[in-house]
């Protein structure tokens, strides 16, 4: 739902930037945050995260964004790309 397009885009871009930075730091990537495509797959291909990285990602999402996913049955659907993480964070913001 977009009530005000420019407000939505600003808030989305702000979260996108923070998620990109967090991923870059967690994965120790030597690239600029902007070089992380918003629809890049996180696991297997794309950023190539593995199960060890997945654990760390869940912890970071909780610590940095207050996003608790552990135990949620739909974790695998929510952590597929950078955009899906941003979606989950924005959804959390809308609920509070």
């Amino acid at each position, binding site marked *: 739902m977009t009530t005000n397009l420019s407000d939505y885009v600003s808030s989305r871009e702000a979260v996108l930037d923070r998620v990109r930075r967090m991923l870059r730091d967690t*994965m120790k990537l*030597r690239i600029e945050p902007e070089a992380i495509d918003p629809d890049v797959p996180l696991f297997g291909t794309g950023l190539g995260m593995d199960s*060890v990285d997945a654990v760390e990602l869940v912890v970071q999402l909780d610590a940095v964004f207050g996003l608790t996913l552990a135990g949620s049955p739909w974790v695998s659907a929510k952590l597929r790309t950078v955009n899906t993480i941003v979606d989950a964070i924005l959804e959390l913001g809308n609920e509070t």
Partner: protein
Amino acid sequence: MSESPHITGWGIASALGVGRDRFCAALLRGESGITTVHRFDTSPFTTHVGAMVAGYESDDRDPSLLSHEFGMLALHDALAHARLELEALQSMRVTLTLGASLFGDHTTERLAHDLAKELGISGPAITISTACTSSTQAIGFGADLIGEGFADVVLAGGIDVLTPALFAGFHALGVLSERPCTPFGRQMGTTLGEGAGFVVIERGGLRDAVTRARLRGYGLSGDAYHETSPEPRGRGVAAAIRGALDDAGASAAEIGYLNAHGTGTVANDTAEWCAVQSVFGSDLGGSLALSSSKGHLGHAQSAAGVLEVITTLECMGAGLAPTTAGFEEARPGGPPRPVGSKQPKPLVYELALSSNSAFGGSNCALVFGKAKPATVSDDERRRVFVSGATALCAGVSCIEELASICAAESPLSKAELQIDLALELPRVDLRGIDRASELLTTVVSRALADAGAQLRGETRARTGLIAGVLRASPDSLYRFRTSLERRGFAKPDTTAFAQVLPSAAQGACAKALNIRGPQSTVTIGEGSGLMAAVMSAWMLARRRDSDRIVAAAVDVRSEQSAEGALVDAACALVLCTEPTAVEVAGIGLAGPGQLDEAITEAKRRSGLSERVELLVELPNPFGGMPATSSAFALAHAIGSLRRGKSKTALVATTGTTASVAMILTSNEVTHDD
């Protein structure tokens, strides 16, 4: 022909009981030692079971105290079984090989040092820290020590203690099963355990001993694949099993029973089953019995290998095949019919094989036979040469610079050592590599380049790596500890956890450079670099599973610990069997403080009649780098020989738990063999 070493006894402290009698009784009844963990709070975790040593379930004393106590219990038990009185032991040439990877504030060799001291033995103690293959390797190396004549008795084994930090790390990786593990069965995941075990390995004919079994051979390999996951097709495991069979001069068909690593995790059991099928055939030749002991004993980490070997030896002697506790229904992708009866199954077999795999990709397999005489045809000993060498610390990036500093006796630069490994290895993924791994990979890569060695095809499996390392990389230790403190035990930093092993650097280096041959991480405290070189030399000389072994050492400056290194340093030497200008003429090994004995031994083995120059023992500018300085001395000696400055060189050091010596000669020097 030479005789396979005798196994005259073994001893154990385990979840199934302390001492052989209790252990055997419980094993034969088909009991499991996995219970609810009472030693520490498991409420942060989703599983609450573990296999603690019987009687110590609630004992939460410092792990170093517990490990020492477990070790002494197992040692005394083993000596009793071997009917070897302490006084008699102290008068023989004894070596202790200990599998231990316990991380803590102290360095890894401390435990071996204290055990040797309490036993009153003066010979060398070598600690192998390769996590789950530590004690398996310790037993294998024991065979080498007997075969090379360095020892008459080897007390080989391993010790580990289940701590909250270990539990937290494995739990966070998602590999622990909720209920007691069911290797090869329906429940995914493993259960952690602990314990201590020792096997007494002896040269025959030295005393009136009862031979209970024979150590026929061992095989070692590396996956070069991932920090925590095994190579999914079991390639490395198969290589270690085949290596053990070759070493034992046995065919796959002769093995009657296989004790698998069988942790119960998704990744291990399918990979291991792939490996077993590739060696033994998809129906196991119709007759091989297979089981995992982790359902009884949990995954005892550094002690897993020896506890599982002891399980196998007890059963083999009693005409039984050990069973897989907890097994009910086979999992897809795993062996369809492991031994899964309630109690061990009656089975008579002449040869057994035990296999383990570890984080960082190391694999080790052992072949045992019954007590009757067994010989192995000796391959001709190979001559060992040095084909590459490099040194690295602040102000030193090659052995020529090392020579200048030694010559000038100028102090070492205090500047921080800067390297950019990505520039040197552009096609390798170096993300997340810790400092120790970075330094070790740099020197090993450069040394291989110095040797003109390109790892292609089969040479990858025939190139090994032995690293002398005292502890895990301080940055990883710090990250892991801090994550426990700040985030709690439910959320440790799992990447750091995979790196808090002393063998993490060797594993990362092997993965980066695709080194798949025999590999290990060893320590004797000070002098570990030279120890790694000595081991590499004896392995190349007497074994046939590699043609080249890189002996390396690394120290990372540690601010946290008084026992840590003061500077970053690393060194690597490539030993091989193809002739070069520098030859390893002789090696010597003796107890700590027995430098002269080690030197005498090396001279005797070198067959050199004239005096050898003692070049650099512990060069003055190179303090504060306990693992590396002795390797630097060796590198310096190699440089000197290459430049024609001398024809012979002796490098020796008295380390914390052993004294080591190596004599190098330029290749024209003749030897009296």
